[in-house]
């Protein structure tokens, strides 16, 4: 290495060291208030989970509501409700960022189905305005109808109508109440989407069956599959995070 190059290197090192110098600061207040808020949010969502009734056809989940649900008619339907219950359980605890269980929207009118399919495109942890859905389905003036269609979502949580907010940033209504909608937004804001296992060097979507057996100290979060690839991880073949 030439002297000039070496000097440039030292300069960059010094600059970086200056830039990243730790600030002297008063400690962050990790007060009881925060911990209490976290606990409270958890109990509100746990309470919701306890009240949920789930119905399914052999093709998929057809209803998620608070209150009692009808008995599954077939073994396949029973299996699906069990799967949905488990996935919702993990989702509400921040251990799942996607749903695998199929939904059955056969009984849903065309317009509403389009609205729900559009809502499904909103990425985990994000929100879009009602107007976004309306223009997405090629009906930009039907904002109110979109709101109604989402309000009648037969499978809330699984189809994310809670990710549709008002254009002014307000939450808008929700089938389980505005408070739950806010809690879900907070939950998704703190749930990562991609995690890698440091021992297998495989990156999965959070909630993948592989992730369940991962030790906590083997978990690293990635921002994208490309990022993970760039440091030697490969995408999981089961949950296929790159798809």
């Amino acid at each position: 290495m030439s002297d000039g190059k070496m000097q440039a290197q030292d300069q960059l090192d010094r600059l970086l060291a200056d830039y990243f110098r730790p600030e002297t600061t008063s400690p962050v207040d990790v007060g009881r208030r925060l911990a209490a808020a976290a606990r409270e949010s958890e109990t509100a969502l746990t309470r919701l989970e306890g009240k949920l009734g789930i119905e399914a056809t052999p093709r998929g989940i057809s209803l998620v509501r608070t209150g009692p649900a009808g008995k599954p008619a077939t073994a396949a339907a029973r299996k699906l409700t069990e799967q949905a219950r488990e996935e919702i359980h993990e989702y509400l605890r921040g251990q799942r960022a996607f749903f695998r269980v199929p939904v059955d929207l056969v009984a849903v009118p065309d317009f509403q189905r389009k609205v729900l399919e559009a809502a499904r495109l909103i990425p985990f942890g994000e929100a879009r305005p009602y107007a976004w859905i309306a223009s997405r389905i090629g009906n930009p003036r039907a904002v109110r109808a979109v709101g109604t269609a989402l309000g009648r979502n037969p499978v809330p949580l699984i189809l994310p109508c809670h990710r549709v907010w008002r254009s002014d940033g307000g939450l808008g209504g929700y089938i389980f109440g505005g408070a739950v909608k806010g809690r879900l937004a907070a939950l998704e804001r703190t749930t990562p989407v991609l995690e890698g296992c440091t021992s297998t060097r495989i990156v999965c979507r959070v909630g993948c069956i592989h992730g369940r057996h991962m030790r906590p100290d083997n978990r690293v979060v990635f921002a994208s599959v490309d990022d993970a690839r760039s440091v030697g991880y490969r995408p999981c073949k089961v949950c296929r995070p790159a798809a």
Partner: protein
Amino acid sequence: MDAERELMERVARGDQGAFGDLAQRYSGKLLTVAGRLLGSRADAEDAVQRAFLQCYAGAAGYNPQWAVSTWLYRILTNVCVDELRRRATRTAYDERSAARPLSSSNHRPPDAYLDLHRALERVPREARVLLALRYVDGLSYGELARIRGITINTVKSQLARGKALLRDELGKRGAGHE
């Protein structure tokens, strides 16, 4: 180091005083890493608080073979990287929509480092995270490897690539000013 592990044991038993000590000891460094990665003080404080909460909740799962700092940095970088992901998808959406319904904050770095800050934004995320950890706390390649769950060779190549990119960017800007 053993004193720190003892501290962690007390945290795991739910000792709030020990947790306060831990937070006091590390919050400065963690705030700097988060601040430099996320660009704003408010986001950094939010990330550090979330990291400490996760640390408190997961203290029982702490592996004593790890240095406490390594463990904390792992939790913090996990939080920060996820925040960067969210920001990337949000930006992509905001750019497409004229309405911009959800706030997209403009982060202002300290003026003295404006060039470096902008140059760092062009460095790929994984390399940027490693640079921050390397320069805030002078962590070794081994520690960096453990924090991000990658090999030491990957750490070295990512750092070298990041720095080469920075030199290029800063060179370009320097030339532009003259």
